[in-house]
């Protein structure tokens, strides 16, 4: 049972504020992390993962900043974009490298490949992969350490309908397992089917944080809260 806590989290890129004084707690279960383009979702997730240095505030996982976790990959798994693969390497090589540098046993590679259904294509170069297959490889990387917390940025991108149905099941199971699953997405209909809670950002600030059940209609609420036009 691991909570993710953002406290006063702020990031400015030069003079441009990307995230402003964000405070919220994400608990076990599936949290939909929503907001229009440019709302600061990706920047927030990258600060949580220690990739971007906050201007102010903290982001912690189980009470520690990401960089302070002794074995971060066993605690947090992340899928940020499906482009972080060398095209000349195979999926298996990519995962072996990832396991090596994360201090995870290489036996985890086969498990993760099987979990995302990539065993058959594991020894092909990523160059020939479809976006959906890259997305699955990204998920395999996130699941490699069997983490309690998952941070997934648009995991459904590029998946076909069967893939989306599979992903929905996977995320629901992970949430029901007591893991903290944070999913950012623009596809509200998908979020509605899997999320227990939703956090909505607009212009870098928190607009909503609460159970999905409390929202009458997710799309209407989203548009109202973020100033979009219905």
């Amino acid at each position, binding site marked *: 049972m691991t909570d993710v806590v953002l406290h006063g989290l702020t990031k400015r890129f030069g003079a441009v504020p990307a995230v402003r004084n964000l405070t919220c707690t994400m608990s076990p279960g599936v949290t939909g992390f929503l907001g229009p383009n440019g709302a600061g979702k990706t920047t927030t997730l990258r600060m949580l993962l220690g990739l*971007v*240095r906050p201007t102010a505030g903290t982001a912690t996982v189980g009470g520690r900043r990401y960089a302070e976790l002794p074995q971060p990959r066993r605690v947090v798994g992340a899928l940020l974009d499906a482009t972080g693969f060398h095209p000349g390497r195979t999926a298996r090589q990519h995962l072996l*490298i990832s396991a090596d540098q994360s201090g995870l046993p290489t036996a985890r590679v086969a498990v993760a490949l099987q979990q995302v259904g990539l065993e058959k294509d594991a020894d092909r170069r990523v160059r020939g992969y479809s976006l959906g297959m890259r997305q699955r490889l990204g998920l395999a990387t996130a699941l490699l350490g069997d983490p309690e917390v998952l941070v997934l940025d648009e995991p459904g991108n590029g998946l076909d309908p069967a893939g989306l149905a599979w992903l929905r099941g996977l995320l629901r199971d992970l949430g029901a397992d007591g893991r903290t699953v944070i999913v950012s997405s623009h596809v509200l209909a998908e979020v509605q089917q899997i999320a227990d809670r939703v956090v909505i950002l607009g212009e870098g600030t928190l607009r909503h944080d609460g159970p999905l059940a409390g929202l009458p209609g997710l799309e209407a609420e989203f548009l109202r809260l973020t100033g979009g036009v219905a």
Partner: protein
Amino acid sequence: MRAELRKLTTVRSTWLLLALAQVVVIAGVSGLMLRRDDPASDAAQRGAIAHVGLVALFGLLAGIVAMAGEYRHRTITDTFLARPRRSQTVLSKAVVAGMAGAVFGISASATALVADAVWLAAKGSSIDLANAVLWKTVAGGVGWNVAFAVVGVGVGALIPNLSAAVASALAWLALVEGIVGELIGGGARWLPFALGQALVGLPNSADRPAVWQAGSVLTLYAALFVAAGVAVTTRRDIT
């Protein structure tokens, strides 16, 4: 470290650079041996084997690709998620690049010695493996390779744009070091390429730094590049 080794050996560019290096050495040795009337002299032998040092260019590129290539393919995200202490990554890469530089230098030396022996035999002479000049030149050439490969990692960390990093490194070797050398006069022999040449005993003049001096200063350059690379890398936002 094992991960860094795996990264280097699972991309084709590494093997391509290694193969190209051998071609350059064979061509270089052959060109020199064709031209010289005294192929077995110490000067000709040093000149032939010194081509091992030129391979340092390929080691430099391999070092740059090892670091800047991670930004190019965005694998840097995965790397830093696995190891949030980023200095570790840069340092492991420097060590592995140094090892790769040694492999480049040693394989190029073997190629150079074989090519040299073949040309000497063709000219009715034979290679004298007891000649210390050969082995001093080999040792200097390997050292040059190791130092430049490590410098490459530093360059890649300082200039994460892969094409810009490669262009800058090549421009320095082809052009800028010469111009800077003109400007600073006597100090020119302390610039990186000149130091590499000094390691293999070139040019044949009195004011070239001694091998130990060249080795020390080149090591210092490598350390400075890596230290600067670490400093910049730990502060960079990966967006």
